[in-house]
């Protein structure tokens, strides 16, 4: 995973609530056996709406997406995170995420920042015409107008993101512990 310490640039001022993963990437794009190229299907139904932020040249290639509550709800499809990554999004800012999506985003090096709705409202306003910055070192989102919104993040996830750590590799290094657990279970719950 590529290390990420900060994400700076334009942000899609999307702001919508309950954005489900069928909206982020419709099912007909899921018949792929690779992780690449899903950006072309991202937000397909939203892109069909007049005046949407994704077709607006002002935000083309923006690395940040600002959304409403419960972003990424619904299906567990990691294709949603791959699609966001493929369209160049490296950070999402929202008041809340579905549990599965926030895990998927993290595993693909996408920073999922949680900020209260008031902060989101302000950022949606600023992002219309200005860049914003998400900084993982200081755990803050800042604007050119001296706004500064601090956020919290699980220390393990932050560490993995900043250092680009491979979680599977880290777990495989715990082989001894896993083997010991299996040995105990083979005796105690042999029916498994």
């Amino acid at each position: 995973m590529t290390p990420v310490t900060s994400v700076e640039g334009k942000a899609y001022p999307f702001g919508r609530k309950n954005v489900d993963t069928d909206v982020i990437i419709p099912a007909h794009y899921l018949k792929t056996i690779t992780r690449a190229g899903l950006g072309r299907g991202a937000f397909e139904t939203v892109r069909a709406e007049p005046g949407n932020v994704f077709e607006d040249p002002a935000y083309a290639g923006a690395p940040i997406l600002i959304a409403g509550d419960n972003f990424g709800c619904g299906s567990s499809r990691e294709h949603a995170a791959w699609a966001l990554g493929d369209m160049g999004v490296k950070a999402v800012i929202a008041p809340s995420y579905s549990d599965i999506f926030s895990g998927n985003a993290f595993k693909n090096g996408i920073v999922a920042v949680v900020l209260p709705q008031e902060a989101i409202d302000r950022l949606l306003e600023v992002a219309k015409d200005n860049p914003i910055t998400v900084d993982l070192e200081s755990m803050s989102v800042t604007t050119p107008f001296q706004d500064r919104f601090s956020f919290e993040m699980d220390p393990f996830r932050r560490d993995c993101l900043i250092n680009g750590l491979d979680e599977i590799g880290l777990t495989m290094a715990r082989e001894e512990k896993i083997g010991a657990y299996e040995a105990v279970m083979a005796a105690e719950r042999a029916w498994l």
Partner: protein
Amino acid sequence: MTQPRTLYDKIWDAHVVEKRDDGTCLIYIDRHLVHEVTSPQAFEGLRAAGRKVRRPDLTLAVPDHNLPTTARLDAAGHRLPIADPESAQQLAALEANAPAFGIRYIDAVAPEQGIVHVVGPEQGFTLPGTTLVCGDSHTAAHGALGALAFGIGTSEVEHVLATQTLLLKQSKTMEVRVDGTLGFGVGPKDVILAIIGKIGAAGGTGYVIEYTGSVIRDMSIEGRLTVSNMAIEGGARSGLIAPDEKTFAYLNGRPMAPSGEAWEKALAWWKTLPTDAQAVYDRVVTLDATDISPSLTWGTSPEDVVPITGVVPDPESFADPSKQAAARKSLDYMGLTPGTRMQDVEVQNIFIGSCTNSRIEDLRQAAAIARGRHVAGNVRQALVVPGSGLVKRQAEAEGLDRIFIEAGFEWREPGCSMCLAMNPDKVPAGERCASTSNRNFVGRQGPGARTHLVSPAMAAAAAVTGRLTDVRDLLGEAA
């Protein structure tokens, strides 16, 4: 003395391999279901890193999502090709990956093939007190048997394949208690729609739900599977139900369930799992069975629930301005006007199937309505898609296929079908579907498709009248 614990706490504690200083735990995974859509990239990752599947014996692969539900064999018994090249490639990938990594594989024409969440319980692969995962959010379904079951992304699929573990933080617990006795014509689907309507689509985020109360206790295992299945539509990754005598009777004798002495040992442990009397949940939500009617959705979020006797809501009636905006957008997409009686809304498509409602009891309930009636003239497509080959065979043994076919329904091969529009079964743009599936999202059943989530009996009722219908009108008055 040990602290009183919930069912969730007990399963969690029994699976901690290692606890880190920050509270994150390495959790052992007992069961892993794999399907064609969310696994190819995981197997590719293993290959690229030169990694093996740690416990192929705890892993079971079945194709379901993009498999067409039309005939799979020709008259001579040969496999028919899959027309869509991408689907064919994805299915071929699973068919190749399973043996390459030593994983048990139920192929597309095996009698046991079906939707992963139907196959797992049916085969006895799903057991109480286990941790069970699958790259699919409706994995929550297996919670009905007392398994801590949840959907995972593809990176996590790869993590489980490689290590048989996941790094997790303990969730909060929410008790959803439904007490009382369900009214005439009210079933498990109505119960879960009522729950989601009450807690909202994000109400369970960060929580694991445990369903309790007399309604849940009185419910059959198949009914419980419907209720647990949709926990994710209320935001909760898992929806547990304490294992009881019904659970044990359901599992006893299933092909992958323990038998003999192993069964007795397992049973003794399973009986220790229910939540202790003094245990405390982080949040408690209660519903009274008498408040639950035959229900359905009107909008594009599973929380948009109304009784069938209700009307399309006015967006201005919602207190939250963002909900008002969402409702306006939903109604525009759904082509509905506030104040319209739900029962006056015509439908062109009927889907009876999906991991929520494709088991034998679901088909029996739908057939009871379809018997002796006929699909209405304005209905263009009415599909009945059994959840597995075994469900299909059972239904055929009971003559349910004849009832459906004579009534004008199509009787299909098992699979996810019209639930998610990634196989040939789709709802055409602008058309409406009474569907027993779990999601009414924009475009879920096809671009521009309009979904109303209903129970199997309500879907059959809509099929024969051509409009959304109160199933009680067709069941007649209660005796």
